[in-house]
């Protein structure tokens, strides 16, 4: 079946499901017992598996299947989640993400089997029955553990011990014991060279059934029949035979490597005797514990690899799929309605034009047409808007990982995820935000808990990510209650790198020094760490945000924390602007950059250090004569007052001298094209109502 036409949908939905899984598993980590979360995870994993299977991505399907198995057991209450399995799950999500990225980049899932993750899952399923309670409800079993540690040499052949029994099975076991029968647990290892594992397993089954009754099998009988097991499976048999007899019977089947077995003890207290009996030959809690220590290590070791691989793949080949926007059906309905209105308006206009003596009617129709097109325009813009949720959703997971990596306690608080931005902006904003968050986590939050206490801050560091709309802008703030920026350190670093001269350093304000951080190759991190501090970063953040017509600044107080503020235009394509005339030419100045418009008497312009300035209500601000910058003749009369448009860039102000104001207008930004895109002060062009082109002045480039 050719499924390539579904590739787009598959990738979109897989990403959604993966994101969902990430969020849910984070929740699960907080509340391990929440059934709603577990059900939701199971559903998402199941969908993912189904989709991967349909698309023919076998490896992805296999991995998801194993993950689903874990949750299936968790849902049934047979196993409990613990920290190590959460780590493995996240690792698995990363691996799945890698598959999806590979598919997106090349159309192929790649050849990483991720068998290590699958193995962790299987081990978990096989072992969790006992090690989870041992770890989590440690008190209950503490006695038993101690007892066992003394008695038992380690060895991990006894996976049958890890089987968890439900109430019904417990009943059966109890009953059998009362009847004086042996309840024997067996773990059978098939030889690695064995070809027909399922057939061998079947023979073992048959042999056991001859001895007694099989009450539990792990994996379930159906899976064993389908050969869905590695090299081992565990059984619990109720029989009259002794464990040794049972083991012998199983070993009689050819191609069986070895069999471990013993009497099953159900509850710790009751079965102390039985345990003592088997303890000598079998293992106890020690083995799973060892395994648990090993797992987190594995996580850290292997996680960089999947992270690095997809980026390589992405760079290598062009994505095989196009970017899409998912549109709310209501928005589309709106569009459809407007288009039909547009057609009606056109028809009315046609009929009005053909009917004689209906001058008024035509005007009326034109007005109608105008309102329809304005609405249509708004609706189309709305279609491009997506909530930033899709980007910020991955951050809780990132902070969780960083917390482990950096060994610092911290918490991420997010608000305003529903804030909408243009799709193109949302796509680009992820990296800068990630960088700022990593920065806060790595350099911001103090690693020294004592220091935090001295400063009167809670042990757990807080990082906030807040987004909200502010007029025509969207503001995203990244805030932390950490160390803040050490201005002296920045200054001495700047001197050391010869970014500034000692004289300059003397005269610089704190804010100016902080802004040095945005210069290329400037990192104050004492150690180069994996997380941040390679000296690439803040300058990239800044240039990225500026390329989105936004701005970034930082406020900080040493010892108390810092706040990074990103300000972005709501949409890139349409802005409110002030139309002005300079030397007979029309220009547009984005309204968002304008602070005030002033009328200035020629005498008020003073010259300071060769630069023209005006004193505006106590603020001395430089003025820029636009006609000089733009290279045209000013049409201003000699003694006329100057019209000065005061623009702001961050905290800096500057006055642009123009000839004449035209008015406020909503303009559609168009690119000047690559061929003449060298002019820095012109950020684009727009087409006015009469078809004329007006250039858009980037006041930020002038200040």
């Amino acid at each position: 079946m050719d499924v390539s036409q579904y590739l787009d949908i598959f990738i979109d939905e897989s990403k959604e499901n993966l994101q969902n899984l990430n969020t849910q598993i984070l929740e699960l980590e907080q509340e391990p017992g929440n059934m709603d979360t577990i059900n939701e995870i199971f559903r998402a994993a199941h969908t993912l598996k189904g989709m991967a299977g349909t698309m023919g991505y076998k490896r992805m399907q296999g991995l998801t299947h194993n993950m689903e198995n874990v949750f299936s057991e968790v849902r049934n209450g047979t196993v409990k989640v613990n920290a190590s399995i959460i780590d493995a799950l996240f690792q698995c999500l990363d691996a799945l993400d890698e598959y999806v990225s590979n598919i997106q980049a090349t159309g192929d899932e790649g050849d990483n089997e991720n068998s290590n993750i699958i193995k962790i899952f299987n081990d978990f399923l096989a072992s969790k029955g006992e090690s989870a309670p041992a770890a989590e409800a440690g008190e209950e079993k503490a006695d038993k553990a101690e007892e066992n540690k003394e008695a038992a040499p380690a060895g991990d052949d006894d996976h049958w011990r890890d089987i968890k029994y439900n109430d019904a099975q417990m009943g059966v076991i109890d009953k059998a014991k009362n009847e004086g029968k042996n309840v024997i647990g067996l773990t059978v290892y098939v030889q690695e060279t064995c070809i027909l594992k399922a057939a061998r397993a079947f023979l073992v089954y048959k042999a056991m059934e001859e001895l007694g009754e099989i009450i539990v099998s792990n994996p379930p009988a159906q899976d064993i029949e389908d050969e869905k097991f590695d090299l081992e499976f565990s059984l619990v048999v109720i029989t009259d035979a002794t464990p040794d007899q049972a083991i012998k019977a199983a070993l009689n089947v050819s191609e069986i490597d070895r069999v471990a077995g013993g009497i099953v003890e159900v509850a710790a207290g009751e079965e102390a005797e039985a345990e003592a009996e088997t303890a000598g030959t079998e293992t106890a809690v020690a083995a799973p514990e060892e395994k648990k220590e090993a797992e987190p290590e594995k996580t850290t070791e292997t996680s960089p690899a999947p992270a690095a691989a997809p980026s390589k793949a992405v760079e290598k080949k062009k994505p095989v799929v196009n970017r899409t926007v998912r549109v709310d059906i209501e928005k589309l309905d709106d569009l459809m309605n407007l288009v039909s209105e547009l057609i009606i308006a056109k028809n009315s206009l046609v009929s009005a034009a053909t009917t004689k003596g209906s001058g008024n009617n035509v005007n009326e129709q034109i007005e109608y047409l105008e309102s329809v097109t304005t609405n249509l325009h708004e609706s189309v813009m709305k279609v491009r808007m997506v909530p930033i949720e899709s980007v910020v959703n991955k951050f809780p997971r990132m902070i969780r990982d960083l917390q482990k990596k950096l060994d610092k306690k911290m918490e991420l608080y997010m608000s305003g995820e529903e804030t909408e931005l243009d799709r193109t902006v949302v796509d680009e904003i992820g990296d800068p935000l990630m960088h700022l968050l990593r920065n806060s986590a790595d350099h911001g939050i103090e690693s020294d808990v004592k220091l935090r206490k001295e400063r009167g801050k809670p042990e757990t560091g807080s990082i906030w990510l807040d987004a909200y709309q502010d007029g025509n802008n969207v503001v995203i703030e990244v805030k932390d209650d950490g160390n803040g920026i050490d201005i002296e350190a920045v200054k001495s670093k700047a001197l050391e790198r010869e970014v500034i001269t000692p004289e300059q350093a003397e005269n610089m304000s704190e804010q100016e020094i902080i802004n040095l951080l945005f210069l290329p190759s400037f990192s104050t991190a004492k150690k180069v760490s994996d997380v941040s501090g390679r000296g690439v970063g803040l300058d990239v953040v800044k240039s990225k945000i500026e390329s989105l017509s936004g701005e970034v600044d930082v406020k900080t107080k040493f010892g108390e924390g810092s706040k990074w503020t990103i300000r972005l235009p709501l949409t890139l394509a349409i802005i409110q602007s002030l139309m002005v005339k300079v030397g007979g030419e029309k220009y547009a100045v984005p309204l968002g950059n304008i602070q005030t418009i002033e009328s200035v008497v020629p005498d008020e312009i003073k010259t300071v250090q060769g630069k023209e300035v005006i004193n505006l209500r106590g603020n001395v601000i430089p003025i820029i004569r636009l006609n000089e910058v733009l290279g045209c003749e000013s049409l201003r009369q000699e003694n006329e007052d100057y019209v000065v448009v005061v623009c702001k860039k961050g905290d800096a102000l500057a006055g642009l001298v123009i000839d004449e104001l035209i008015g406020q207008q909503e303009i559609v930004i168009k690119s000047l094209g690559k061929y003449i895109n060298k002019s820095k002060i012109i950020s684009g062009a727009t087409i006015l109502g009469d078809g004329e082109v007006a250039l858009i002045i980037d006041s930020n480039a002038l200040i």
Partner: protein
Amino acid sequence: MNEIKSYSEAIQYIKILLGDEFFGVDIGIIDNIVRMQRITRVPNVAPYIKGVINLRGEIVPIMDLRLKMGLDEIEYSKATRIIIIKTESYGKIGLIVDAVKEVVALEDEQIEKVPYDSTEENHFVSGVGKLEGALISLLDIVTVLTDKQIKEEG
């Protein structure tokens, strides 16, 4: 239709007038030919870039081919046309020419290649076509667009 068919063996060129010389522009890269219209000046660009125009909602930069070729600027007349060419790397670009004449078809044997010589002023020309006794210099559009003016650099 017949006319086009008879040309199919050869490459078609638009014959344009620039000063007192005829030039040919490969018809394949031409998007459109429009009359002279209001051009919005763009500050701080090379002198031969006259500005931008609105071509059905698209902003298209306009280059004066006379200035680019080192000819004197003349006043635009009724015959002045803007040839809109489509390029892969820059999108659409308009070239102002004195007049557009007709479509000519030139076969390979009618074209004489000229060796590339960057010092000569005719280095925008990739070949010279001979048609009914007249000469048509064939413009190498890629060089016209990418070549930096030597004077400007110095």
